[in-house]
């Protein structure tokens, strides 16, 4: 049944990448429990616009939980308190009347705040560019299923490929490490025969690029897998460690 909520929001407001930010307080009145979290911010932004104030900048795109564009830290939890859910799929029915909700952007040295809750996550793209590709021959389309891959392996690769690159793992990590993201991107290709020719170069280049971009080091806190909206497991991090080991000691890549 639809109810309405009255909430107090404490939202991080920051004019630009280099300006100082602070938490501002807003009253969210008559918020329907059927709304998504982003729709709730839309309502607040309508109000702010009518009052002649600057609306809250936040990232969003598909609003179906598949694009990886949205995300904010809600009451200390990336994408909010629900397990395996992106912020756009978080509904207001999970909150109670009178709640105070803290909304902050992803925080990491490698992610610069563009404005308010909008964060520049191009560091993740740079990691992919360093080695997250496979080489394919040009010419006619190859036959489907020409290369035998077991169902189990295909499933594991797909589990890693479910990563939408939202950056919640970095936001959740006490060390702001991008290990879960990088390991998912390495794993999805390392598991399949198509990714084998570049495996060594990929592992080394992607890990070194990740380090260079200023992400922290993994200390196996497991917060990333607990917060990942696609529930990607740290088994992938162990696989990346093995890939990096093989590449470092048994390949020609320097």
């Amino acid at each position, binding site marked *: 049944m639809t109810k309405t909520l009255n909430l107090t929001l*404490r939202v991080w407001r920051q004019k630009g990448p280099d300006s100082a930010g602070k*938490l501002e307080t807003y009253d969210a009145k008559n918020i329907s429990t059927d709304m998504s979290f982003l729709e709730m911010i839309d309502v607040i932004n309508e109000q702010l616009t009518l009052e002649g104030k600057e609306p809250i900048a936040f990232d969003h795109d598909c609003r179906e939980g598949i694009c990886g564009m949205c995300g904010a*830290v809600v*009451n*200390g*939890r990336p994408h909010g308190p629900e*397990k395996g859910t992106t912020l756009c799929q978080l509904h207001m029915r999970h909150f109670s009347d009178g709640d105070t909700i*803290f909304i*902050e952007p992803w*925080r*990491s*040295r*490698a992610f610069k705040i563009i404005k308010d809750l909008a964060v520049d996550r191009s560091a993740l793209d740079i990691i992919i560019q360093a080695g997250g590709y496979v080489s394919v021959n040009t010419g006619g389309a190859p036959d489907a299923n020409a290369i035998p891959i077991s169902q189990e392996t295909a499933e594991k690769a797909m589990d890693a490929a479910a990563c939408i690159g939202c950056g919640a793992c970095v936001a*959740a990590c*006490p*060390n*702001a*490490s991008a*290990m879960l993201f990088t390991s998912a991107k390495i794993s999805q290709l390392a598991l399949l025969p198509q990714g084998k020719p570049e495996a060594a170069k990929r592992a080394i280049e992607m*890990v*070194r690029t*990740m*380090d260079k971009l*200023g*992400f*922290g*080091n*993994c*200390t*196996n*806190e*497991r*917060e*990333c*897998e*607990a*917060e990942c909206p696609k529930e990607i497991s*740290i*088994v992938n*991090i*162990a*696989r*990346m*460690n*093995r890939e*990096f*080991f093989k590449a*470092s*000691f048994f390949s020609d890549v*320097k």
Partner: protein
Amino acid sequence: MGWFIKTFTSSIGKKWLMAITGLSFCGFLTSHLLGNLTLYSGKDAFNSYAEHLHSLGVLISVSEKGLLFFGIIHVLTGLVLFIQNIKSRPVRYSVKKSAGGRTIGSFTMPYTGLVLIAFIVLHLINFHFVDKTGTTIYQIVQEAFSKPVYIIGYIFAMIVVAVHVSHGFWSAFQTLGVNHPKYMPFIRKAGIAFSLIVGLGFGFIPVFISLTI
């Protein structure tokens, strides 16, 4: 050699250093505990164990240097990771909650580590670099544990060891790439069991000694 340095200064390389040295300390704890268990069967058993241990000669001095070398690597790498990890998030969250991944062991790792290094220094001063002429190691232990401050300090340190190892043990396996649905649940349980055995095995020594005086 450029690749070698690059490998071990990478984030994964540093993890390996922590894991390999840490696992070898687990091995040390096991042998140290097995030896010290002779304390529970009395003065003579412990003294003769100590004698046998020292008669190993060069084996012992090599192990000591190895442990010292590993200790330096573990502490320095740990400090570098600690500082880098603080720097990687220059602006902290106003509100941050755990999603259930962290444990007491995992989030206290650098702090329990610093407590342990202080303990190890004191421990070596008390029992290793102590003047052993005209006395037995059992008497030294007995005298130390006649002081309540020592008993409390030692038990506290053993709780800290157990907490540190409860995260360190399974974490080392994860770092070395040994994570598999078949055996990870066992490794996690073995880590908890190991930390309990170490904590209780060492922790009861001062209690036992002070009761048998």
